[in-house]
């Protein structure tokens, strides 16, 4: 099959959230000895970008977003080891430590953001829900993260986002990380008030925000 045709099918599989098809195409690409980096860039990435557009237009909602990003992740899981084998040194677009702050056990929103970031090529360290503030910083230090993402779903736990920023300041680490916040009760205003580097209303916006903060925006 022609390369271009496969790329179209790959993009289609991601848009439709067809995980099995996305995986099958990834395997086929390897059998055909296609360059895995090019396959990701030209086959799969346009798909997930289209998904983002459909979300922004309101045509896609959470289930579609999740199945597309899951399909994307599954395909990447096939291709990335090959890239490493070939030692092409594919670098992640950036590292994000993410979690729901302490006192809060809600994590669907955070999971979707993590999934979309991963599908968009960022390396994501998901710490889960009800995460101690110190834990975010430890992990970020350990993996040399670029960004710390904090989710809070309750008006009563949002305060954790503010405290983390204060904690970073106390430890004189504030300059080292970009801190982004999100969650149902969180607003751009709140993000600004607590001195966060950014706020995103949803998973697709979060991808844009991270790209913008790291200056790694892809050409559309």
């Amino acid at each position, binding site marked *: 099959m022609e390369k271009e045709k496969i790329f179209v099918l790959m993009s289609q599989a991601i848009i439709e959230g067809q995980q099995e098809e996305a995986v099958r195409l990834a395997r086929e690409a390897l059998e055909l000895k296609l360059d895995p980096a090019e396959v990701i860039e030209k086959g799969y990435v346009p798909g997930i970008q289209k998904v983002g557009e459909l979300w922004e237009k*309101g045509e896609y*909602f959470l289930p579609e977003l999740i199945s597309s990003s899951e399909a994307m992740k599954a395909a990447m899981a096939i291709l990335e080891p090959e890239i490493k084998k070939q030692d092409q040194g594919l670098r992640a677009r950036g590292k994000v430590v993410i979690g729901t702050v302490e006192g*809060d056990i809600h*994590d669907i929103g955070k999971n979707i953001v993590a999934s979309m970031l991963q599908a968009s090529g960022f390396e994501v360290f998901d710490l889960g829900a009800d995460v101690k503030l110190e834990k975010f910083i430890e992990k970020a230090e350990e993996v040399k993260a670029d960004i710390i993402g904090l989710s809070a779903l309750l008006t009563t736990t949002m305060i954790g986002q503010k405290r983390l920023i204060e904690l970073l300041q106390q430890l004189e680490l504030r300059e080292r990380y970009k801190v982004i916040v999100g969650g149902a009760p969180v607003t751009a205003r709140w993000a600004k008030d607590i001195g966060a580097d950014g706020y995103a209303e949803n998973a697709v916006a979060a991808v844009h925000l991270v790209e913008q903060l790291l200056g790694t925006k892809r050409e559309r």
Partner: protein
Amino acid sequence: MGKSVETSKEIKVMIKPGERIIQGEMGENLAQILKRGGINLNTWCNLRGICGKCAIEIIEGRVNEKKEEEIKIEKIKKWPQNYRLACQIYLEGDIKIKIPEESIIKDIKILDRGLMIKKEIEPAIKKYQICFVHNDLIKAGSILNYLREKLKIEELKFSLKSLESLGHFDLENDVIIYIYDGKELVRISKGVLPSPLLGLAIDLGTTTIVMEAIDLESGEILGKQTDFNHQLSFGSDVLSRIAFACASPDNLKKLQTTVIDELNEMIEKFRDDCGLEEENFMEAVIACNTTMNHLLLGLPVASLARAPFISIFSSIEPLRAKELNLRLNPEARIFIAPNIRSFVGGDISAGLMAAGLFERPGPFAFIDLGTNGEIVIKKDDQIVVTSTAAGPAFEGGNLSCGLPAVDGAIWRAELINGELKIETVNERPARGICGSGLIDLLAIFLQQGVIKPDGRIAQGREKIEIQDNIFLTQGDIRQAQLACAALKTGFRLLLENLCLDPRELQAIYLAGGFGQELSVENSQVIGLIPRIEKEKVIFLGNTSLAGARLLLLNNSSRQHLLSFLERIEYISLAMEPNFQDYFLQALRFGPWP
């Protein structure tokens, strides 16, 4: 000790009119015989001969002589000579009697609709007229001992203050003694004035407060008031009120005073409008969610809204009105319906009690749909409960044209010959959409294909026009999907926990804001509730208020409720491994199972 031959002799009690005969034994108490025979005789004072409520008319037969107290009651009540207190009669031979209507305990209807639940009037607080018989008083040795004997309460509890007030009464006249929970002396008043025994049933909602003044002896509802909860100005839902309360100790105090002041204003209105004196209100039962009862008591609420979501109390001993600055009788008791968990409060526990659901074998589901959707499912002896964050969409909260069910809100819609017909509250010109209207509209648009099952508006349109300036946007539909999915996911996880297929449910009871205007079919079309026969979906109305009413009028219900609560298992949805998968699946509109 064996009974003597004479006392075990069988005797007959014949009840007129009719030929009903109940067998008794020589020397046996008549009230007890009648009770045993299934007659619902009013034994308000537990056979102590002091309340005068178990009067019967003797038609034929010989009985023991009246004592001084009975003669006093007879005079007060102006009874004919042949009237006697059944509890003071010990049989000496066959008798024929007639039982007046007023000596039979009346049942009270608990729910306003949906299910017929009747309970006996048996309040926690009772009043008794006591006369002082000189010889007995001398024998007893002290006024307190006299009361102990007359009331037949050996361990009579009292405060120093009530002891003091005992000394202020003239022993020539009768007094009225108020006893709480069968053991505690809470008030003494002069026996000459007729004073009603009143109570309040209060549904203290996050949005609305409903208060009923009830005569505790007759069960009659004497007045009712409804008002918005004035705490609304500090936040519309429980979480925003918790956030406000946590911001400073002054804020917590402010929330408490706001609600207490409002309750006092309502109590005052009962005096102004219905002539009910504050001092005669001897008890209040308050049913509300956990946050509301914590705020009412001025308790810190921080722990309620962060993991592990723990309340300060579930159940507490009744408080005194004066402790809360409630303007009832200062000694009036305030009973708070017990909480189940931090997000499933006394409003739900009282509601379950009111609907008699603990006694029903099930399997059934009980849903109280508001900003939080509480779900309870019972199967045999197992009861599981959860709370879902449904959000305000079904209360018209976060929709572009959303309204609560006020004048002009679209609350019903249907397709007639392919044309959309809408109905508004009080037939006022349409100015928005409330919850039940939203459900109808969603169902219609789904069936027409205007909305796809994934929630998308067909043909890439951004909104659906319903009338001039009233529309549903893509964002509104997304909000409805989230609300619907939250409830559906909770429902599914509880059912799974009990290994129950939704089709096995014998009933789904709906409590809370939604009333008969909610279309069961359309709720099932969008998937808000599972598909079971329409007749099995039963609207119960305000079960929280009904529960408060029941707990106020029937003291034993309180103990029952507490023992039932021990059997309830709380399921935290966010901790369930399948929660996310189910939630994402549930975002799709459509009937289930």
